[in-house]
């Protein structure tokens, strides 16, 4: 972990074994995080829909 602004890889991401170093690995990690964020929004939407459905019952 370098405590200043840098564009190189080598930072741990969630797990000790997940340390994207190459540009390809960093891009892949970004895509995974992007889809994780989309999944979180999807679950949030499903929760809201379910609450609405249950409140109408």
């Amino acid at each position, binding site marked *: 972990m370098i405590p200043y602004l840098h564009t190189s890889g080598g930072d741990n991401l969630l797990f000790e074994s997940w340390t994207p170093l190459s540009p390809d690995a960093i891009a892949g990690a970004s895509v995974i995080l992007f889809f994780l964020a989309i999944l*979180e929004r999807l679950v949030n939407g499903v929760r809201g829909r379910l609450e609405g459905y249950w409140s109408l019952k």
Partner: protein
Amino acid sequence: MTEVFRSALHRSAEHVVQDDNASCNKLETPSLSDGSRLVVAPRKRIVPPFILAHDLPRGIFYMFQATITYALMLAVMSVLSSCSPLVQTLTLLFCVGHSKLDTSSLSLWVWVLERSFSEDGLPPLITSSEVLSFVYPQLFLLHKLGDSRPLPRGPGKPTQTEEKKLFELAHAVSHPGFDRYF
């Protein structure tokens, strides 16, 4: 002495029972001494009823979402810890502005405060007074972006209705669908 307490307790218990009866039965309108009638509104349901078939999936979905949110927060924090304080502050402002009073943004603020007071040799992000000065603009933005509901005036204590409206607004934003119970 205990007798006094017991009778007081008994009286308050009676009062609660009467109050419950009055609020359950909408048609009961007790007369006041001056002849006017007291209309007792039924209690509003703010928590959905306990139904196991609803509450189990509700809990599972919440657990799933909380796990993802927590993992995303950790990812953001680990990336931010290797950035300059300016980039950290700007990213936090962006995150807080976008997550709209969500619990994940609150934990980010806690992290900012912890970083500000920690003695790990890293420069502090922002001071606590700066954090406080960021909270009001966030509410102001929320007020401007959403529908124009009143904001608490000045640094004084907000009135009960203002507090309730702010709570409902924040709740409706972070929990879509829940507002049907209000």
